[in-house]
């Protein structure tokens, strides 16, 4: 599960929790081994974006499925 506190120890706001949830679901999707190329590369690209947003807001999350 994603840690729901930022690196300053503050709890995630509703908006931040939603973002972290999207990121976690994308990470889960991207880890599947049965993805067609269009979904595999698209989900990796999307993960880089959600990683960036989470990182901007001070959350420590994994950035890539591979």
């Amino acid at each position, binding site marked *: 599960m994603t840690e729901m506190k930022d*690196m*300053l120890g503050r709890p995630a706001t509703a908006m931040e929790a939603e973002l972290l949830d999207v990121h976690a679901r994308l990470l889960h999707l991207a880890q599947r081994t049965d993805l067609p190329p269009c979904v595999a590369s698209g989900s*990796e*690209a999307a*993960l*880089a*974006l959600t*990683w*960036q947003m989470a*990182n*901007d*807001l*001070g959350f*420590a999350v994994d*950035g*890539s499925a*591979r």
Partner: protein
Amino acid sequence: MNPSPFWNPKVESLTRPELDALQVAKLRRAVRHAVERSPFHRRKLEAAGVTGECIRSLADLRRIPFTTREEWMSCQASTPLFGDLLAHPREKAIRYHLTSGTSGKNPLRVLDSRRDWQWIAECWAVGFWGFGVRPADTVFFAFSYGSFIGFWGAHYACEKIGALTLASGNMPTDMRVRQILEMGVTTVCATPTYALRLAQSAAEQGLDIKGSAVNKVIVSGEPAGSIPETKRLIEEAWGAKVADTAGMTELGTICMFECSHQPGGMHIIEDHFLEEVLDPETGMPVAYGERGERVVTSFGREMIPVLRYRTRDLVERVPAARCGCGRVYDIYAGGILGRVDDMLLIRGTNVYPRAIESIVRSHPEIDEFQIVVAKANDIDEITLRVELKPGTADGWPALEKQLHFDLKEAHEMLRFNVERAADGSLPRFELKARRVVDQRKKS
């Protein structure tokens, strides 16, 4: 339209102690990543006895060994092409670029992952938004898009912001000017030198660029963007505000930017970089307002971690309160003030190219210039060669006299030779200008 003046209000509005705490947490992660993934950094950090867990305060930063360009080059030479710096296999990369080789050394080779590329654009977006670029803007990049990183990240930042983004690639200068006018461009991005060249081309074509829609010129790549005299010339030529930005290819992005308040310096993007200012000789920190060498640690670089990198850039750091914008980010007053290694020693006097440019740009009739250093009878001679704008030749005798005086007065009465160069004879630059020709090195 989003009314926030800050790209990332949560972080840009932190208090200083909160930002410090965030930096400690990010530094711990950066060190952990470097130890786990990059053989180059693992070797160095293990030798120094440093792990991520050792990082408990900002003071622990000083336990991390410096990284130098020489080490990076030597690592790439011993294990071509990328050395053992990479934190991930080459297959994870989506971009490749090279340093510009300004210092005359072998270029460094850099790979970026998807995440790096997002982060690179993100840092530019912080700066562009901070200077006022918004989705309604039309942004023109006077940039050739080669393997030199230059404005690549800024291009993607503008797409990210949602602005209409124009890439001019290998378009000639006159055509670029016409497209700027035709497309109602509001923001032009170029080196300071090339921003002046574009304005000159507009004048040659009889086009009114000052009356155009351009209201922002964002410059990068040369210290001149923070030299007040050069900046004023660009602002007058374009009828627009000018903002400076600075970064480095090793990082792939900018580390600092000038906000719309134009505080006479650039804010450091401190949630993405940890910047130190150190005495270049002793490696000890200098106080606010004292000149020293920038040493940078990146929190965002994935493929090639960058820890305590000696940039050789000279800066003077001042507190964030110097600017009225309200950001927590500290400021480098006057931008990049020069390089540790660009000082010329002429007959015992220190001469900085930036100081000469500052004098030259206070004379708007000068179109282009070059600094030539040579030996004559074993004595160092420095010559300023200047090219005049059309229609200003009558003023040359007075200008020559004034330049002699200004240069001498600014350099402990050192004598400069001043020469007028033939029209069109001096080189023009689109990327980083190289105006110093040191012929002593050849001999």
